[in-house]
């Protein structure tokens, strides 16, 4: 379809491209959204789905490409413009004002006012809000503060907000991620209702059973690129999974699996209600076990519970056969367990501080005598780590934030290696790291295992899992969905467990 002729074809993008300083997150995206359809966009974590939606909704600006509505090119410079064009984006986690009433949340920035003075007509606003909520079958009191609502109800408020703007295009980013099956069913009812009125809905989701339950068409994205668009009746679940992961298994540095030694970390029946349930796994000395699954499957939460950051309700954790229950990360570190958080900016490194101070942070008490820090020793230890990990830094006095993402990650590794851990939990060790640094981090993880360390690696990067792991444990919806040995491992097998395409219900 050529852009430029006005028609009622809906929304389309041509060549939409966006990068955040690195490789493009969305590349040459060609996409058509027809009035009245539910168009699912699926793909692995990091495939660029959310960024794509944000480009359409004016949250981000594309580097290249065009968006057109009814064939007419449009510039969507901010979310307000998007709304005026009839585009509403509904986030996975509702972006609402918890202190304000439902009615105000719906009309914020757009309050109905009385003339001649522009004073807000509260009664009219509540009445209109009640009407909108009723039209989607939501039984919510418009006067109630939004902070009192459940997430499902908050989503209904977001949908009502979209309707108040007469949205023609409703973009939903993983709207079902935190809903119960019944709530999902209701949401689907509303979506069907919207599309019956001609509203087009984009539906980003990981759960394939839901995608097939609601979508008319399915667009698959992989690594920021569109793989293709299919009619939902013409493609099978297996086919979707295959297309989602079907990248070339390029130069994956397959490591020679070590002979695993004694059991180092053993988790049994670990449960934290509403977060994860009955999680059991074990890691041997010299072994790398990957913990795979979709974002939100509860992997990080398990790691945090093991490391003593978050509490858990039931279950046992054994470290070299000894039952342990850490009340703080400090205790865990002292007993030889280290956890590298995923979010190194906020949880891992203190970015303005020099590399040396970051590294010594975990062992300050060992480096001090009578409360005074042995600064020379500190520097020596830091330099040793920097050398060993091949951190590209001019000096250990350099601020951590001046390093590249990959080198920051290495510093973070160094910070935990100085505690001489015997069990290492890594959370997305190469996220946001460039290819070169990634290979080095992989090599490093392999070396650590070869030296007898037990490594549990949370990773959403399937090639990484395949390259490094001796075994993979896949989580879905807070439970262990299955475990695959080295010989059973493939991207498809992992994805199938992760999205629940293995025939098992997700409950």
């Amino acid at each position: 379809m050529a852009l430029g002729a006005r028609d009622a074809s809906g929304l389309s993008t041509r060549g939409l491209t966006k990068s955040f300083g690195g490789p493009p997150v969305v590349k040459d995206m060609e996409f058509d959204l027809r009035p009245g359809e539910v168009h699912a966009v699926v793909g692995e974590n990091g495939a660029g789905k959310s960024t794509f939606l944000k480009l359409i909704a004016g949250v981000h600006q594309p580097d290249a490409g065009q968006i057109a509505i009814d064939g007419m090119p449009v510039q969507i410079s901010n979310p307000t413009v998007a709304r005026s064009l009839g585009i509403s984006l509904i986030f996975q986690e509702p972006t609402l004002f918890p202190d304000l009433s439902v009615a105000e949340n719906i009309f914020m920035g757009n309050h109905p006012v009385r003339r001649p003075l522009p004073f807000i007509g509260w009664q009219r606003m509540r009445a209109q809000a009640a009407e909108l909520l009723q039209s989607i079958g939501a039984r919510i009191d418009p006067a109630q503060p939004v902070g009192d609502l459940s997430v499902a109800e908050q989503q209904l408020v977001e949908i009502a907000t979209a309707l108040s703007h007469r949205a023609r295009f409703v973009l939903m980013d993983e709207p079902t991620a935190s809903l119960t099956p019944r709530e999902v069913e209701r949401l689907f009812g509303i979506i069907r209702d919207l599309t019956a009125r001609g509203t087009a809905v984009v539906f980003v989701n990981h759960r394939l059973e839901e995608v097939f339950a609601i979508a008319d068409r399915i667009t698959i994205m992989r690594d920021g690129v569109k793989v293709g668009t299919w009619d939902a009746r013409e493609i099978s679940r297996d086919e979707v999974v295959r297309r989602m992961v079907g990248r070339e298994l390029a130069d994956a540095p397959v490591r020679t699996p070590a002979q695993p030694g004694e059991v180092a970390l053993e988790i049994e029946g670990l449960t934290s209600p509403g977060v994860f349930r009955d999680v059991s796994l074990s890691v041997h000395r010299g072994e790398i076990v990957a913990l795979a699954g979709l974002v939100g499957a509860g992997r990080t939460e398990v790691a945090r519970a093991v490391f003593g950051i978050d509490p858990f309700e039931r279950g046992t954790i054994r470290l070299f056969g000894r039952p342990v229950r850490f009340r703080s990360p400090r205790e865990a570190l002292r007993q030889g367990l280290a956890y590298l958080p995923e979010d190194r900016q906020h949880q891992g490194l203190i970015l303005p501080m020099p590399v040396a101070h970051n590294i010594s942070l975990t062992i300050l008490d060992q480096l001090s005598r009578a409360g005074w820090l042995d600064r020379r020793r500190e520097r020596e230890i830091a330099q040793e780590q920097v050398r060993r990990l091949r951190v590209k830094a001019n000096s250990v006095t350099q601020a951590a934030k001046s390093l590249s993402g990959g080198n920051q990650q290495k510093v973070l590794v160094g910070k935990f290696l100085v505690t001489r851990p015997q069990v290492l939990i890594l959370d997305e060790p190469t996220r946001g790291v460039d290819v070169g640094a990634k290979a080095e981090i992989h090599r490093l993880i392999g070396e650590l295992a070869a030296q007898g360390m037990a490594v549990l690696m949370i990773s959403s990067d399937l090639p990484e899992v395949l390259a490094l792991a001796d075994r993979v444990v896949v989580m879905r919806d807070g439970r262990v969905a299955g475990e695959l040995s080295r010989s059973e491992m493939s991207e498809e097998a992992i994805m199938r467990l992760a999205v629940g395409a293995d025939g098992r219900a997700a409950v």
Partner: protein
Amino acid sequence: MRRQEAGTAGQALDVAVPRPVEGVLAINRGLARFRDLGLVVAIAAVAAVTAVRSPQFATAANLQRIMLDISLLLLVATGQTMVVLTRNIDLSVGSVLGLSGIVIGFMLKDHPTMAVPFILALGAGLGLLLGAINGALVSWGRVPAVIATLGTLTVYRGLVFIHSGGQQVNPQDVPRQLLQVARPGGLGLPPMVLMALIVAVAGWVVLRYTRTGRAMYAIGSNPDAARMRGLQAGRIIFLTYLISGALAGVAGVLYAARFATVNPASAGTGFELQVIAATVIGGTSIMGGRGGIPGTILGALLLGTIANALAVSGVSGFWQRAVEGAVILAAVAVDAVIRRQAVRGVGRRA
């Protein structure tokens, strides 16, 4: 569908972690309402106890004194309430008051015949300028509000000394027409009390009935969501600082009218604490998004009553400050409790 139902075992996904909006803080309306009532009870109790113990408390002259003090407080706290609602703070109001009092006071020495509305307008204008500096620092300079206004608090106080050369504005320098503002007039009330009431009501109308006012709540409640909705947070925060500055500027003039003396060291020094106290005690959350003028009025009433009660009971000024501080802490603690109660039962976020 209520939250309890969503969490029912069996039908719920285990992973159906309720994910609250960033910082979801449901208002516990019961406790919030109880707080308003509590304030009224507290004011009555303080007044009753003091009236029994100190015969000079419940006299016409003293009640008028209380009203004059409270109107200064209320005037400035109205602006502060708006600032705090947007999750910011204006620490410079005491210095703005002092600078306005000194600058306008010295001006009156040379021009004793200026009309009152004009004098007030001058005070407002000066405050507007000082508020604009605060607002620019916070909105566009992206300096955290506490730091920005702590800095201007010091700078403005420095200017007070520079401009006055350490001299104070003396009673003979304050023209009669201005002094009348603090004397009983129509309705038996001093004009400045009426002014404070009018400003407070106007502030209430803005906050409750205008889109701009509602945007102040929205920005404080969830800044990211406010941005997503296309609210111009920078401009609106700037506006709250303008209002806060202008009202503190007017308060500087009224201070001169009330005390007939403006001392560069004492005029408005520490006043910001009382103003913020009145705001927070009144139920405006220091985290923004919640509260409003009616609460601030009660907060100012309570604080003014306590201060006066301590004074007429012969308690030293030092104790007075300690009590004020304790009342602020109590108010913030109540706020924290309300928040915690609201968050309980909502899923933890990893």
